């Protein structure tokens, strides 16, 4: 249990998928101008990560890992090199399925999230979390916690960033630094802030 809590805290703050591993930057910089859309995209990412990461764990451990196909009678087959292709395919399929389910049962939610869902397929954070999950050899409960809390960390970062950008509109930024430049430096300062949580021990 303690282990799970520390994975959750670590992936939300110190090992934030965006601020420490630079994943999901494209959509982070493109969408963070407006707080409402940033919140929508953040929620969509939490949603997709919570679902896809455990599914990818199941796929990896029952189909791809060395010796995983023992249940089908092929104990020496190692398909782990296929993980990149298969993970991206599952992500795309799950996002598509989610889109259809949300459209069918909650048109209001679809209206606010719908635009962001296709964007998420190519969000590096989703694939990155699945690959980190394999590299760090997490168990199934650890994977579930890691997926969800990475999503929360990403959402927290993008929502904070959009709030800061709203304030920045009133700041007097040198002309060459406006736009992308100041955004990167702000992100750097945010990353310093998030790293301060490294001092907390449970």
């Amino acid at each position, binding site marked *: 249990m303690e282990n799970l809590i520390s994975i959750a805290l670590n992936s939300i703050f110190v090992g934030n998928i965006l601020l420490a591993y*630079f*994943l999901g930057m494209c959509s982070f910089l493109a969408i963070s101008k407006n707080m409402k859309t940033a919140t929508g995209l953040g929620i969509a990412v939490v949603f997709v990560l919570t679902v896809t990461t455990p599914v990818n764990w199941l796929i990896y451990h029952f189909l791809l890992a060395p010796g995983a196909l023992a249940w089908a009678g092929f104990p020496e087959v190692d398909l782990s090199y296929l993980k*990149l292709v298969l993970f*991206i395919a599952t992500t795309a399929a799950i996002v598509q399925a989610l889109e259809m389910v949300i459209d069918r049962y909650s048109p209001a939610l679809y209206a606010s999230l719908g635009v962001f869902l296709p964007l998420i397929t*190519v969000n*590096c954070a*989703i694939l*990155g979390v699945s690959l980190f999950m394999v590299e760090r050899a997490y168990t199934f409960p650890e994977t579930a916690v890691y997926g969800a809390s990475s999503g929360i960390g990403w959402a927290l970062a993008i929502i904070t960033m959009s709030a800061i950008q709203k304030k920045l509109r009133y700041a007097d930024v040198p002309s*060459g630094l406006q736009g992308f430049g100041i955004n990167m430096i702000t992100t*750097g300062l945010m990353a310093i802030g998030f790293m301060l949580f490294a001092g907390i021990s449970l």
Partner: protein
Amino acid sequence: MPDAVKRNRLQRLRKSPSYKALAKALWEANPISKQILGICSSLAVTVQMKTALVMAVSLTLVVAFSSLIISSLRRAIPPNIRIMVEVTVIATLVVLADECLRAFMYEVSRQLSVFVGLIITNCIVLGRAEGYALSNPPWRSFVDGLANGIGYGSVLVGVAFFRELLGSGTFFGYPVVPPFFYKMGYVNNGLMRLAPGAFIIIGLFVWLEHTMLSKKKG
């Protein structure tokens, strides 16, 4: 008159579509600083020059060959499933690159960890396939992919240069800061080795470039 011929040839080269594609991707519309694409997987590997260079080379090869293949197939790909086809081509190339790195440069491949795999979701690769290769002939797409990869790689290696120099005082792993500097109280800047350093350096890079470009125009 060989001089005039030479000039003529140079002019014709400058007007050729391949040259235009190359120049545009390298300077005017550099993928990182202008299109703000593909920084995702790039920054985490810029702590050292070596990893950054390997990453830049693998990305360049993946972009160039995926553009070549997609452009050759462009009349055969049905438009409504084109993204799936593109991602499949890119993913196959990335798996090849990953396996090659693991076979020939195991140490570096371990340091790059998941970031080689993340080339698949790098917006530059898909963006070039979508935006250029689908509507241009194979050779020109190949050059365009190559140029975009090199443009991206140059920013990556530039960031890595400063991060390694300021963060560890080394260049490709060789110490370049003279020892008496340390005796006089010089300290390596640990911040540069951490994530925030990369963000701040990229920000400063963009500042420099914007200022230079706007001066040129004015």
